C-alpha cells in the first residue's frame, strides 16, 4: 500500500473526520437518535463549570443590584415623591373641577327646566364678615339685573334673599340667619307657617299649633305667599319636633347645603315657577300665581 505524503495526511484526516461526522449525522437521522452518550459526557464535563460560573455571576449580580445599583435610588425616590405630590395636587384640582362641573350641570338642568323664568347664575365669592351674620357675597350685581329682595336658590332648595346690591356684586341673607324668613307650608298636610333662621345650621318653623299633626321627616316647601319665592320650592326637612307653648318647636334641616355654597341662581322675577325635574316628587305648582296675596312673613 502506497504511503500517503505527509503534506496530504492532514487532508486525509480532515476528510476522515468529516466523513465520520456525516455518518454520525446519518445515524442520528436514521435511528432518530440524539447521541445521548456523547451528550451526557459533555454535559457532565461542562456542568460543574456552569455551576461555578452561575454562582460567581449570581454573587456579582446580587452585589451590584443590592449596593451599586442603588446609588441613584435616593434621587429616584425624591423625584418620585415630588411627582407623587404634584399628581396628588393635580388630582385634587381635577376632582374639584369635576365636582364643579356636576354642580354647574345641575344648575343648567334646573335652569333649562325653568326656561321661561328669568334667573341668573352667580358664583359665591365671599361670606359674612362677622360670625353673627349669615350672609354670602355673589359675583353678580345690579348690572346683571339683580335687585334687593330677590330670591336666591339652588336646584336643591331655597338659599335666601338679596339684601344689598352693588353694581357688580350682591349680598345675600341666608335662610339660617336670625333675621331671615320665608313663608312655607308642609308639602303633605299643607300646614302653613313662616320658617326662619336662628343663627344655627338648622332653621325653625315658628307658628304650628300643638294640635296640628306634624311628623319628623315631613318636607317643607315655599308657599309663595311672601312674593319673594315661587311656590313649592324645597325649603327643608323636619328633623325634630318638641311641644311648646302655644306652638310646636319644629327644627328643619335646609334642603340646600348652605354651608358649602359655590354657585346659586338668583330669581329675577317674582312670578311662580313651574316645578320640573329638580323638584320631582313634590306636588305640582298650581297655575295660579299667589303673588297677589299679602306677604305674611316678611324677613
Amino acid at each position, binding site marked *: 500500500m502506497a504511503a500517503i505524503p505527509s503534506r496530504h*495526511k*492532514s*487532508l486525509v*484526516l*480532515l476528510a476522515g*473526520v*468529516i466523513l465520520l*461526522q*456525516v455518518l*454520525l*449525522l*446519518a445515524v*442520528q*437521522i436514521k435511528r432518530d437518535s*440524539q*447521541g445521548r452518550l*456523547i*451528550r451526557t*459526557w*459533555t*454535559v457532565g*464535563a*461542562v456542568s460543574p*463549570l*456552569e455551576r461555578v*460560573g*452561575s454562582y460567581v*455571576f449570581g454573587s456579582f449580580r446580587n452585589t451590584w443590584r443590592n449596593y451599586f445599583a442603588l446609588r441613584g435610588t435616593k434621587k429616584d425616590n425624591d423625584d418620585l415623591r415630588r411627582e407623587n405630590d404634584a399628581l396628588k395636587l393635580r388630582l385634587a384640582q381635577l376632582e374639584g373641577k369635576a365636582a364643579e362641573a356636576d354642580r354647574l350641570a345641575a344648575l343648567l338642568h334646573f335652569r333649562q327646566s325653568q326656561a321661561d323664568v328669568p334667573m341668573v347664575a352667580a358664583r359665591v365669592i365671599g361670606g359674612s364678615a362677622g360670625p353673627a351674620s349669615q350672609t354670602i357675597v355673589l359675583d353678580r350685581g345690579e348690572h346683571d339685573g339683580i335687585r334687593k329682595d330677590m330670591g336666591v336658590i339652588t336646584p336643591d332648595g331655597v338659599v335666601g334673599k338679596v339684601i344689598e346690591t352693588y353694581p357688580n356684586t350682591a349680598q345675600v341673607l341666608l335662610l339660617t340667619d336670625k333675621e331671615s324668613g320665608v313663608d312655607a307650608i308642609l308639602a303633605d298636610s299643607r300646614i302653613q307657617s313662616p320658617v326662619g333662621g336662628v343663627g344655627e345650621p338648622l332653621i325653625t318653623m315658628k307658628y304650628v299649633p300643638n294640635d296640628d299633626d306634624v311628623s319628623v321627616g315631613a318636607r317643607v316647601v315655599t308657599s309663595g305667599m311672601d312674593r319673594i319665592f315661587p311656590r313649592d320650592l324645597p325649603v327643608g326637612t323636619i328633623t325634630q319636633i318638641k311641644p311648646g307653648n302655644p306652638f310646636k318647636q319644629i327644627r328643619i334641616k335646609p334642603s340646600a347645603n348652605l354651608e358649602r355654597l359655590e354657585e346659586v341662581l338668583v330669581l329675577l322675577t317674582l312670578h311662580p315657577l313651574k316645578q320640573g325635574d329638580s323638584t320631582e316628587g313634590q306636588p305640582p305648582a298650581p297655575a295660579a300665581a299667589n303673588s297677589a296675596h299679602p306677604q305674611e312673613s316678611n324677613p
Partner: protein
Amino acid sequence: MNGAFDLRIGESHIEVHNFRTGAIVLSALFALVIQAWFPLHFTRAALLDLPLLVTIYFGLSRRNPSTGLLLGTVIGLMQDSLTPTVPLGLYGIAKTIIGYLASSIGARLDTEHPAARYALTAGFFILHQAVVALTRRILLGQPESWFSLHLFGAALLNGLIAVLLFLLLDRLRRPS
C-alpha cells in the same frame, strides 16, 4: 512541545506557539460554558460564537492542520452536545473545517496583527455559518438562509470580540 519553534516556508519566518498545560482544554471549556450560559442573561450575547473564536485562535497559533481540525471537531461536537435542538455533527463538521483552514492559513501567514485577526475571524465566521447552512440544507433537509445582514453584523462583532479575546489568550502562551 515545550517551547515555540520556527516554521520556515520559503523565505517566510513564522513562529509556532505553545501554551501552558491545560490552557487549550480550559479555554475550550470556558468558551463552551460562557456560550451556553451568557445568552441566558444577555440576549444579545447569542450573536457571539466563542467556541468558534477559540477554535480559530488555537488553529492560527498552533499552525498544525491536524491538531487544528481535531480541536475544531472536539469543540464542535461538545457544542452540539450542549445544544439539544441540533444533531451531533452539525457544528462539529463546521468547526472541523474552520480548525483545519485556520491552521493551514496560520502556517502561511503572520496572523499576529489585530487587523489580520479581525479580518480572518469575520471571514471564518461567515464561512462557518455557510458550512452550517450547507449541512442543514443537504444533510438534514432543513431550510437555512445562506446570508443575511444579521449574519454580516454578527461576523463583524465576532471579529471585534476576537481581537480582544485573542489578546487575552496570548497571555496563555509559553514564553519563547
